[in-house]
């Protein structure tokens, strides 16, 4: 018996050692499965990302991961944004706007081809614009409602007539709703995207990766890499470990900022830190009775110490914004002072509104920033007198269905990465269920006025949102990229919907 006990003691020490080793290597062991797509030759690249698309069809499926992968790479738009946010030519070489600002005439490139072999013409542009209005189902399609008609003046000339002047429409044409489709290439958008871009979709290993290969018939400058694999990781540490073990060459967006020091102190890697459009929003379901009272919404904003939250859940990286506008937009104002952290005032507001002691359901997507910030938000709101119940919903499928489509939630946390998305996120039809005629008035005036009126009214809209506490803007996500030292062309700022792969080189 004594010897048996000794054996067990030895086994215990061994099991403790194994457990410690398991913890140390755990990240790499859950690295999203092996796809066999590790970078090989010089012309292949592998990029690690965090949220895998639910489908490849952004005409019917919401989520930022689809345009991130496909827009600008497989699909192209007539116009696009450059790194400074300026609208520049893409499939349209140039364009003119009529004096009444209602008619746009585009001159299109004459040598672009879809990957199914069809020539890109103005008829495809007409088809694509009309299709947004007739076949798309996502809420962002509303930006195309302003188009009264579109017609092909010639194979390379397109005319679009708006029902009223719109500052926003041309900008929206740089986003996913401006993607150009081939009439014969839309039968299987969810699995087989066909575009004119510098890359061709090759395959999708669900749960693991999307593979794209260079489009050798591309009409513009051909990309450097022959093949680029986008690998998806649910676990932030696994993503870091994948770069450390050379499974990937680039971390497209760092999800474990606390562990960044392991890269900054290593000469093998470059760390890029810039800004994004990604407003991390503590969203309120404004259709729920508890959120009808302005005092409750304001109390929630004041109960959160945003600086402490950013330091705790995202290692202090990112920027506090105070409304739905990032600093890269022309109408940005620092609105962090509108609802400063004031626990005593938050408590009294909750008492006055009668919300103190009520339980709110915080439904979080399984994304690292949401899980981390959700715990801080819960603790801070409970100190102010609310009760918070956290539910985790698998992202994207369960979260999109429960929170985004059915609005079955009280509060949630998600980063909205679409550019200039204030009006899209805060309206009665979106999952925030925010119905505010005053806000809509500012947005309409911003869209129809001249440039100065646009900036002025958008500032008013952002301030209105902040003062009405339509949600709480926890912080703006930083653009944190880590890559092998020799990778060039990585963007400092991520201010568009897409991850431009065509500029990458070694």
């Amino acid at each position, binding site marked *: *018996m*004594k010897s*048996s*006990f000794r054996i*067990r003691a030895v086994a*215990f020490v061994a*099991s*403790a050692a194994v*457990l*410690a080793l398991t*913890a*140390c290597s*755990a*990240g790499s062991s*859950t690295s999203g499965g092996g796809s066999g797509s590790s970078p090989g030759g010089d012309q292949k690249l592998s990029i690690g990302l965090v949220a895998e698309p639910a489908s490849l069809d952004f005409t019917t499926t919401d989520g930022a991961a689809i345009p991130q992968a496909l827009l600008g790479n497989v699909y192209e738009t007539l116009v696009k944004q450059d790194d400074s946010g300026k609208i520049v030519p893409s499939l349209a070489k140039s364009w003119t706007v009529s004096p009444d600002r209602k008619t746009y005439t585009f001159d299109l490139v004459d040598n672009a081809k879809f990957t199914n072999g069809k020539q890109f013409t103005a008829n495809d542009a007409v088809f694509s614009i009309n299709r947004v209005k007739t076949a798309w189902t996502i809420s962002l399609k509303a930006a195309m409602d302003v188009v009264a008609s579109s017609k092909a003046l010639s194979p390379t000339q397109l005319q679009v007539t708006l029902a009223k002047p719109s500052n926003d429409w041309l900008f929206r044409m740089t986003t996913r709703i401006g993607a150009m489709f081939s009439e014969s290439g839309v039968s299987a958008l969810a699995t087989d995207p066909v575009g004119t871009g510098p890359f061709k979709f090759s395959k999708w290993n669900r749960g693991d990766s999307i593979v794209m290969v260079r489009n050798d018939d591309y009409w513009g400058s051909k990309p450097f890499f022959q093949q680029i694999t986008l690998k998806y990781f*649910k*676990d*932030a*540490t696994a993503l870091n470990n994948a770069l450390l073990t050379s499974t990937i060459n680039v971390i497209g967006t760092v999800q*474990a900022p*606390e*562990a960044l*020091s*392991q890269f900054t102190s290593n000469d093998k890697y470059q760390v890029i830190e810039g800004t994004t459009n990604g407003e991390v929003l503590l969203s309120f379901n404004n259709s729920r009775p508890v959120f009808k009272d302005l005092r409750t919404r304001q109390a929630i904003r004041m109960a959160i*110490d945003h600086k*402490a*939250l950013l*330091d*705790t*859940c995202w290692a202090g990286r990112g920027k506090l914004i105070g409304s739905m506008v990032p600093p890269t937009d022309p109408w940005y104002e620092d609105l962090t002072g509108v609802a400063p952290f004031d626990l005593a005032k938050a408590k009294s507001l909750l008492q006055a509104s009668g919300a103190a002691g009520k339980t709110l359901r915080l439904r979080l997507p*399984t994304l690292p920033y949401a*899980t981390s910030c*959700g*715990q*801080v938000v*819960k*603790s*801070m709101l409970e*100190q102010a007198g609310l009760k918070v119940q*956290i*539910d*985790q*919903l*698998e992202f994207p499928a*369960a979260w999109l269905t429960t929170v985004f489509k059915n609005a079955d939630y009280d509060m949630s946390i998600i980063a909205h990465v679409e550019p200039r998305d204030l009006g899209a996120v805060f309206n009665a039809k979106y999952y925030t269920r925010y119905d505010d005629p005053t806000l809509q008035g500012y947005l309409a005036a911003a869209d129809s006025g001249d440039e100065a009126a646009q900036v002025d009214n958008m500032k008013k809209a952002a301030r209105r949102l902040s003062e009405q506490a339509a949600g709480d803007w926890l912080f703006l996500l930083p653009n944190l990229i880590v890559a092998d030292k020799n990778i060039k062309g990585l963007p400092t700022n991520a201010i568009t919907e897409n991850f431009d792969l065509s500029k990458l080189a070694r």
Partner: protein
Amino acid sequence: MKRLNPSLVVGGVIVGVIVLMALISFVWTPYDATLVTPASRLLEPSWSHWFGTDKFGRDVLSQIMVGSRTTLFVGVVAVGVAAVIGVPLGILAAMVRRWPSEAIMRANDLLLAFPALLLAIMFGAVFGASTLTAMIAIGIASVPSFARVIRSGALQVMRTEYVLAARAAGRRPLPIAVRHVLPNVTSLITVQASVSFAIAVLAEAALSFLGYGTPPPTPSWGRMLQESQEFLFSAPRLAIFPGIAIAIAVLGFNLLGDGLRDRFDPKLEDRR
């Protein structure tokens, strides 16, 4: 007087300490285990925080104390589910005729082919990740081991003279199962429960580590391990403390199981 069995004693003490820690945590912990205090984040172990604090400024010792509740809860649920289904199934398989018995055991084998963690992840995907769903799944996955062990024990009991006498006297199967078979396989049930308890604790830790177990911010040793990943280089203690807690708990339940087996089966002890 019979000599004390070291496995039983050490296992009993470890399990006793965990139970005590869980009970104390209901009335007292050094700090609120879920209170986020940004000013106190990532503190080294000290007199005020014996095990230090995590990235949210939460006291690690308090989390380990409250986490022991989760550990015991998962063990009770998983073993309860496994025993409630597995024991009657094992006794039934021992008492019925050949082909129904074979059918039960082959169905059992089929369930055995499902890895417990995979079953728990499937349950989590369908019913939502929670401690309870994970443990029901682990419990169901543990049914075959209960049924197998209990069937072998029950088969031996069925051949004893008192059962043969009861059958000859015209006793119906249910009273025989309840009055004669069940009491004589309780030692097997206890040993199997103790071993399954250890497996369930480890499974919960693994599931929470993967994000399919206890949701945040409820303290759980597996979740603590998961959240410590970012700090393996800068603050490895955040992984070490819950790792040691899991290892000790699993060891404790395994030793208790071994000790109980030795206690209930003196022949086995003599052979050692």
